[in-house]
């Protein structure tokens, strides 16, 4: 039954990691705008353009 302590540790670390990842994603601005990206993904990049650098998808 002592194995349950290991499991608890793992579960806490796992859940804590998700919390940390959530904070990081939020700081990175992933939740700032959840409408535009859904439209943006539908635009096609035409290949015949002079091929300038496509704007990066990171907000900052």
């Amino acid at each position, binding site marked *: 039954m002592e194995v349950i302590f290991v499991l608890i540790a793992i*579960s806490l670390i796992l859940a804590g990691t998700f919390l940390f990842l959530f904070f990081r994603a*939020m700081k990175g601005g992933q939740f700032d705008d959840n*409408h535009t990206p859904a439209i943006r993904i539908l635009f096609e990049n035409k290949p015949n*353009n002079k091929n300038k650098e496509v*704007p*990066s998808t990171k*907000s900052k």
Partner: protein
Amino acid sequence: MSNPVRLKPITEHQACFHCGEQCTSEILHFDGKEFCCSGCKLVYEVLSESELCSYYDIADTPGISQKSNQGKDNRFDYLDDADIIDKLVDFKNQQEIHITFFIPLIHCASCIWLLENLHKLHSGIVSGRVDFIKKKVQVKYNSDQINLKEVVQLLSKIGYEPSINLADSDKKKPEISDKKLIKKLAVAGFCFGNMMLFSLPEYFSEAELLGEGFKKTFNYLNVFLALPVFFYAATDYYRSAWLSVKNRAVNMDVPIAIGIVTLFIYSLFDILYLGNEGYMDTLGGLLFFLLIGKYYQQKTYDTLSFDRDYKSYFPIAVTKVVRNREEVIPLIKLQVGDIIKVRNEELIPADSILLEGEATIDYSFVTGEEVPISKQKGELIYAGGRQKGNALTLTVQKSPSQGYLTDLWNNESFEKDKIQDLASLANRISGKFTFIVIFIALLAFAYWAYAGQVSTAVLAFTSVLIITCPCALAMSTPFTLGNTLRVFGQGKFYLKNAQVIERLARVDTVVFDKTGTLTDPGKASVTYSGESLSPETQSLIKGMVSQSTHALSNRINSWLEGVTATSLEQVLELTGKGLQTIYKGQQIRLGSAVFVGANTKNLPSGGNLVFLAIEEQVLGYFYILSGLREGIAEVVSEIQGQAKVHLLSGDQDHERENLQQTFGQDVLMNFNQSPKDKLTYIQQLNQSGVQTLMVGDGLNDAGALQESQVGIALTDNITNFSPASDAIMDASMVQKLPRFLQFAKTSRNIIKASFGLSFTYNVFGVFFAVQGLVSPVFCAILMPISSISVVVFTTVTTNYLAYKRGLKPKIW
């Protein structure tokens, strides 16, 4: 003399390829496509040169009409000013500058596509990034290749003119508070989830599934997990409770804070000292649900940001004349004594004396009177007026912050905080609630202590506080009001905050402003009587009125829709009289009866008359009535069932009879009201003890809107104007106003009902708690059930009732 002639509209309208508007006055052909104006054609040209025509593939006619956007090349000159640039930019280094523009014209997927392809239009622009919901674009550009002014000019050239105002440049408020709340919510959720897991042995305490050792460890883990909840997630409640205690007013957060602290300390004592299981999971759940409610409420407020600052109304820059040279400076740098130039359609930025030019000032925003006033040299012109006509030279008498508008704005009634005198319903109830709870808890403590059972006394005291912890009570209000705000928002009725709903529910007197509120500027009715107009005369009239900015000219102009204007060399506008021109050697006059020398017998009354005369020969007249908004008569009569209706108007009273007929005899009407009069009128109403709702259309009613218990600003363009009001309503939604008023009352009743529900739970809980019979299981089950049931109850009832009353298209 009275056979009304109606113009037949031009039958075949061609839709503009760029903006989709009907091409009425001119049709331009280019590239096999039709355009309604040269502006639209220009945008198309720019886009096709840069091979960006897939703009038109994403949506049909995605453009914005360019008709109104022509002329005035130096209006962005202030963007050369280094101070202004520094205030506007987000980020700046050696080469790159990042700036965020607010562009109200963003409306479809094509807009996003074009604005994100700005770098193809100018090599100096690195990228554009759109936030569709907030209608914002972040542009990054190389400062050595393009400057801010050129960026803005480029944007406005392709039809996306950013709206820049002083409030923006004053520094944007960071949205940190929202993020903090989400973080707290995440922490609470994380801890709550895990604590539930560790409390599992508690929930099955009878089963003795695990040994004592496990139970202890789990309890300690719970204490450990409760720390971030207690010391981080709950901090907002301590602060709010402390502030309210400091101000000697008990608000909703006081019992919550007491509950949280008691729960935590007692659980700590219970676990560490008595070796029991405590209520840490309950604490986690409580905070989690409370924060969800708070987040939900905040989300609903985000629908519209209200700007009560007068600065957003003023222009950001003015043209200053220094040694015969024009120079565009930011408004904040304007000083007394400066000489400024104000062009056609520009606002007077500060109280000034007219030095040169013919001033025809439209004060419709300030006084409500539509007809422009003419001013002579040397006269004082107040801030807030709009010049109609040629450019003026003025000398500034007061700095912009001391102008007439600012006086109106800073009127002492504006300073009064309405929230203070009207404690909201929930706060009043929860205030009493707190005292009752503490009283019962103390009573239970005293009873058991007297009986000699101290441990039971402590248990009873804390469990009363815990079990009655008003989380259900606390959640019912934000959830109901939040839902109501959302329902209103869907009906294009945006409230400043939830307290407005409670004030709306108490309204018993509704005051309407006439101009722009009851009347629709676009719906004026124009009829022509007299000799019928030949197409040539029509286009001649159109040519005359299109050169004038008078309100009546505008109406005749829009009545002559579809007619091509004759280009006239010289149209003389005689203030207070009318228009005069020479066409093919004939003198043409358009204006008042005296001006054209018309006979004034047998004429219709109640509206404005404009006569047409050729070579002293009167041909006929236009009869112009300001049109009422659609369905407004029904609105007024429906409201009369609920409240008294008053009507204030800045206009002369020549329409009194007309209005009295439409609205009935019970409506109290007052004409010739200046903004000050309107304000005093509302003040008098307030003093007589009634709860007033003022419905106006903006700044000319600013004082009255602010003074009334609830001020609603009707606007035809929500993104354009944000006045000093408690709510903004889309003018097309005014028919629903009575239903909104009703619904405000309903939502108040829903809150009361949910209070009843949560009181039932509480009475039930207290019954057991005072006997010291409450076990953790009981607490853990009753609390979430009561909270969840209250939330479900309020959400379902508000949505269902809103749907049933036709305020919502769907239940969800």
